[in-house]
């Protein structure tokens, strides 16, 4: 998505950064970062003592309130990709970056109207619980776990690389060490503190990010005498493309890309396993519903701030401010650092330190949520329900902890491998898989009586292959990474096609399925429907 991202590393290799020209480490940032780590470690120890059952480990015992969960969901969703990524996109592409902000918020009403309450009523720890309720557990859980793991790993890589770069710029720590530190911390939070620790890390981080973002937006506003118009004037005056900054069509050049990107954002949220998992941490469907309301409020507010921050960065992160490498004319740390440079431009070293520490906390919290979600896909969906249905609770939790460690190692290694890689497309791929594999599976199982195991499998496999194939053969990987002359698949965003493949596969596969098993699965829909609507039977499922 950002061709200049490969130059990111080049910019970072320079020993002096604009705001640390003397080579000194930003002491406030280090202090804040250590403070955050200290507090979260304390929470992890506290949580570890309260984590006794699998229900505690995966769902925080169902004791999280709607407000707390809303904040935690917002924390999960407002990743570094949001704050740093969208400001970076606006910095480069202007108006088109806003599509990400608008789509990110519009996905939430959909989660509420279609999924949240039913999911809570049907499931236990993962969205696969709800899907496999009336379908064949083994194949369906394997499919759901594959979809979850693909999304989780791709998302993890993006966050790891982002965090590594941030730490490198800020603390002058080697990228390799930085990635290892993050990997180590996230494995520790998840394997010792489970969902209780992950939730509280998420809540603290979301509060910090909301406070930090508000302060930054306020300072930008004050700088421009409280006029949004003045910010836009400053941005247009400072941007090489001038007034074109405010015109759509720079990032998405054709109608198919625009609609496909929008659909990825709209439906992707409803298929992200670490977000869906959060609905099982509350007591009942009404609390799940309240969670979404608070989450949408916080996310909507934060994304509106990004309108100010994105254009503010264009106006204030200037060439004479020393934020660009004078030789190559590339922003120091890559355009991903636009929001961080903005913090420096508006509030000096102290505020830079504060915002960097907030971003770092953000990444740490998001990778923890992702790791827990990946660990539950393997331990709960695959191990406890496919390979070893007689496993005890202790065994399942032990497998989770081992999986968290393995995922940590995978994330660190992939983070190292992809250091020089453009990270934005990986996060987008995670959303694409969520939108075209996990979402259709969950949606059809709850809304369409005729969905059968075979239909779900056919649709899931077709959606997954189209999404992954479209990305690999598309312009981003085939041309920019693998250096072929022309893409085999012409569009950057495959979701529209993968979604169509997924739905048509499920439709055809289910309608052609005339087996006795299929009839039993259709007959079981009525009971599942009653449970999804009334919550009857859900209480029994959440008490282990």
């Amino acid at each position: 998505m950002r061709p200049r991202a490969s130059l990111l590393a080049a910019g970072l290799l320079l020993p002096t950064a604009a705001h640390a020209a003397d080579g000194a480490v930003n002491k406030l940032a280090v202090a804040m970062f250590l403070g955050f780590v200290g507090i979260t470690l304390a929470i992890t120890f506290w949580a570890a003592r309260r984590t006794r059952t699998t229900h505690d480990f995966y769902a925080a015992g169902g004791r999280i309130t709607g407000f707390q969960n809303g904040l935690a969901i917002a924390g999960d969703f407002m990743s570094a990709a949001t704050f740093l990524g969208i400001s970076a996109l606006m910095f480069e592409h202007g108006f088109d970056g806003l599509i990400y902000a608008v789509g990110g918020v519009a996905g939430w009403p959909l989660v509420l109207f279609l999924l949240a309450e039913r999911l809570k009523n049907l499931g236990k720890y993962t969205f696969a619980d709800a899907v496999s309720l009336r379908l064949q557990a083994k194949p369906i859980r394997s499919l759901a776990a594959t979809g979850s793991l693909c999304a989780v790993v791709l998302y993890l890589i993006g966050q790891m690389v982002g965090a590594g770069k941030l730490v490198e710029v800020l603390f002058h720590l080697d990228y390799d060490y930085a990635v290892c530190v993050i990997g180590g911390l996230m494995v520790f939070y998840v394997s010792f503190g489970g969902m209780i620790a992950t939730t509280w890390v998420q809540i603290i981080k979301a509060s910090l990010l909301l406070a930090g973002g508000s302060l930054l937006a306020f300072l930008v506003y004050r700088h421009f005498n409280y006029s949004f118009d003045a910010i836009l004037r400053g941005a247009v005056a400072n941007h090489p493309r001038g007034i074109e900054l405010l015109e759509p069509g720079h990032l998405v050049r054709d109608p198919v890309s625009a609609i496909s990107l929008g659909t990825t954002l709209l439906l992707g949220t409803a298929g992200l396993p670490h977000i869906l998992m959060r609905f099982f941490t509350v007591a009942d469907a009404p609390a799940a519903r309240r969670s979404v309301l608070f989450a949408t409020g916080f996310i909507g507010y934060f994304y509106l701030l990004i309108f100010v921050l994105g254009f503010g960065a264009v106006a204030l992160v200037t060439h004479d401010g020393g934020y660009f490498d004078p030789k190559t004319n590339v922003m120091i740390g890559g355009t991903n650092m636009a929001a961080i440079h903005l913090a420096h431009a508006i509030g000096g070293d102290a505020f830079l330190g504060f915002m960097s520490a907030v971003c770092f906390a953000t990444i740490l919290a998001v990778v923890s949520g992702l790791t827990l979600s990946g660990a539950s896909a393997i331990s709960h969906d695959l191990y406890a329900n496919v390979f070893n249905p007689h496993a005890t609770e202790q065994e399942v939790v032990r497998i989770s902890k081992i999986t968290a460690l393995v995922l940590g190692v995978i994330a660190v290694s992939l983070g190292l491998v992809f250091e020089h890689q453009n990270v934005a497309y990986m996060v987008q791929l995670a959303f694409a898989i969520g939108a075209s594999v996990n979402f259709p599976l969950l949606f059809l199982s709850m809304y369409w009586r005729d969905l059968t195991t075979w239909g779900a499998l056919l649709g899931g496999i077709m959606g997954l292959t189209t999404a992954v194939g479209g990305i690999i053969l598309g312009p981003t990987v085939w041309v920019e990474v693998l250096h072929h002359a022309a893409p085999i698949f012409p569009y950057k965003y495959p979701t529209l096609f993968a979604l169509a493949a997924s739905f048509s596969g499920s439709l055809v596969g289910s309608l052609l399925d005339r087996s006795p098993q299929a009839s039993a699965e259709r007959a079981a829909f009525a009971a599942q429907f009653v449970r999804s609507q009334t919550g009857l039977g859900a209480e029994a499922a959440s008490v282990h």
Partner: protein
Amino acid sequence: MHDLYRLIDADPEFHALQRARSRFSWGLLACVFVAFYSFLSVIAFAPTWFSRPLNAHTMVTTGIAAGVAVILFSVVLTAWYVWRANREFDVRNQVLLARLKQRATTR
């Protein structure tokens, strides 16, 4: 099927409640879709519409205003859904469950 599930499935109030809830949520969802895909369609098919300033005295374009509007609209619809579900659907659901649970035990 469990007895109580059968009772609920046969109950007219359950189906009335379920229809009301689903009409409401699909209706709101349609609003979100129309708003968001209209926003996207302008970007896709008529991008110049979004580069126009709102009026002669401002830099704020219709595109920026539309983006803010879609975000606010999403939050408002979410709040509306939760408000009505809390006030109406939950209560009806509780009454329904209490009545049918009693019927299932007295039979």
